[in-house]
């Protein structure tokens, strides 16, 4: 997934170059970031705050498959009579948690391996390359399925499996960046001053790698959210009673002849979240990479 992001360059429409900026960042980006933060906060609060728990767990078998706009259930209910609005929000919370967890782990691991590979000598480089290629032999979903056989299905399995595959592509990019950063004059200066490699990495590489990291981290969040939903859809991710957009979709599919609503709702929320994340990431990339803006 990651290489494809690297290969696919961002196209910036002519019009976007002259947009107004606040703090150097365009207004649509701010709106995107704000919306994302709002959704994430809402989802996490509904998922984690005890007062909301009852809202998304309560079942009512006398009120199953209620259509949207029913009294008390603005978005209707599912096959067990659970409120779809609260279910979706709690599911979004799970998505956000999984996305952030995967992004954090993948970025940390990828940064470490990338810097070690790019700066700590030939042996480290060869070893890290082999590890990356082995990791790359497994599509993320395949590894998650294999992990599910090992650790049993669940969200932890999903987070670990995704983090342990997604770091590899990221690490390759970091290695490439480090190869160019290590030739800079200030790095030579630091070495002349007697700084060791770890200190140089932390002081000079990490801050310079932050823009790339941030842009890719947002992609990781989007990718992880989709993958979690997909795995939960297969029954390998979130286990009942944990809410998940993927599980809602799986249930919706079983009752597709009866109602489309859960599928539309959960699928729509999932798609919009990913769309928002992708566009924010694209805009951040444009912001951090002046070359893109100047290209014709």
């Amino acid at each position, binding site marked *: 997934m990651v290489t494809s992001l690297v290969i696919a360059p961002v196209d910036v429409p002519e019009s976007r170059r002259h947009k107004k900026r606040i703090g150097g960042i365009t207004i649509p980006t701010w709106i995107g970031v704000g919306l994302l933060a709002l959704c994430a906060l809402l989802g996490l609060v509904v998922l984690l705050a005890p007062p909301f728990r009852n809202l998304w767990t309560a079942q009512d078998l006398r009120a199953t498959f209620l259509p949207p706009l029913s009294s008390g259930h603005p978005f209707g209910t599912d096959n067990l009579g659970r409120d779809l609005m609260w279910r979706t929000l709690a599911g979004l919370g799970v998505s956000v948690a999984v996305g952030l967890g995967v992004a954090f782990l993948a970025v940390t691991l990828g940064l470490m391996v990338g810097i070690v590979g790019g700066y700590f000598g030939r042996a480290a480089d060869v070893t890290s390359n082999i590890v990356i290629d082995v990791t790359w032999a497994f599509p993320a979903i395949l590894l998650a399925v294999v992990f599910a056989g090992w650790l049993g299905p669940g969200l932890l399995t999903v987070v670990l499996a995704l983090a342990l595959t997604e770091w590899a592509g990221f690490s390759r990019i970091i290695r490439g960046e480090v190869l160019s950063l290590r030739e800079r004059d200030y790095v030579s200066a630091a070495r002349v001053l007697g700084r060791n490699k770890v200190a140089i990495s932390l002081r000079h590489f990490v801050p310079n790698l932050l823009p790339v990291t941030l842009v890719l981290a947002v992609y990781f969040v989007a990718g992880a959210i989709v993958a979690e939903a997909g795995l939960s859809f297969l029954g390998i991710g979130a286990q009942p009673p944990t809410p998940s957009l993927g599980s809602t979709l799986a249930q919706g599919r079983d009752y597709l*002849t009866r109602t489309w609503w859960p599928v539309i709702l959960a699928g729509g929320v999932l798609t919009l979240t990913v769309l928002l994340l992708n566009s924010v990431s694209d805009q951040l990339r444009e912001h951090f990479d002046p070359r893109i803006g100047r290209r014709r």
Partner: protein
Amino acid sequence: MSYVIKRIGYAILIMFLASLVTFAALRVAPGSAVTSILDPARTPPEVIERYKEELGLNLPIWQQYVNYMANVLRGNFGTSLFDRRPVFDLIADAALYTVVLAFAAFVLAFGLGVPAGVIAALNRGGWFDRVIRWVTSAFMSIPNFVLALLLVAILGVKMRFLPVSGASGPANLILPALVLAADPWSLTTRVTRTAVVEQLGADYTRTLRARGVSRMRINWRHVLRNALTPVVSLGSVQIRTLLGYTLIVEVIFRWPGMGSQLVQAILKRDYPVASALALLLALVVVIASTVGDLLLRAVDPRIRSNQAVIS
């Protein structure tokens, strides 16, 4: 030539390590295969013991691995723990379905993606370009299982237009192939478009135009040829993504391929089947990236100076 040998040797090394990973992940797994077939509470211990002995589960783990690999290299993947059929036969049945599905998706993605990208790039800023931009963004954002469910709901359940499950006829291939192709198609289209736009603005294009070479000739003979390098390298990456997605798409459409078989095997803890499938899928990915690397070197002479192994 020495690079070719080196690259293949490297691929074999990677495969060996990948086989260790699948083996370890699936054999060291808690909840042994034996207890998922025989109820430990009601089966006499000696029966369980005999079963373990028969499956070689009492040997040290490295010996299990050596035995396993020795068998695998002879084409013997063991027997399914559940229906006692040879794993090889089970997979052979499923493999054909997956190959057909993945191939159809691959052809759709590249067959439609490259022309769409080229047309969009040649008409940059035109209506076709704008439509393509919107459609590709949409397809890249909508998770493919959501797309699958929507298509099932609209074309299958509502209109009863296309079959939505099973593999009883060629029409069953249409929906899964379309769903599987949606994301790679978008990416191919975008990458092609950007590459062509880049080549159109390159200095040599301007020179050719100044020399009076016809636009048709520039576009077809020069621009397209140079623009295809990133598309080729995208191809080998796409195979990895495509195989990952077959797991989900096959389950949704009940397509009896390797993906749905793997999910079944994992959920049932049928380790021989699961590890053989995981190994096979990894092998396909490794082969694809090796072939992709070699192909890229053949297509683009500039890469030859670079000795780094890239997958």
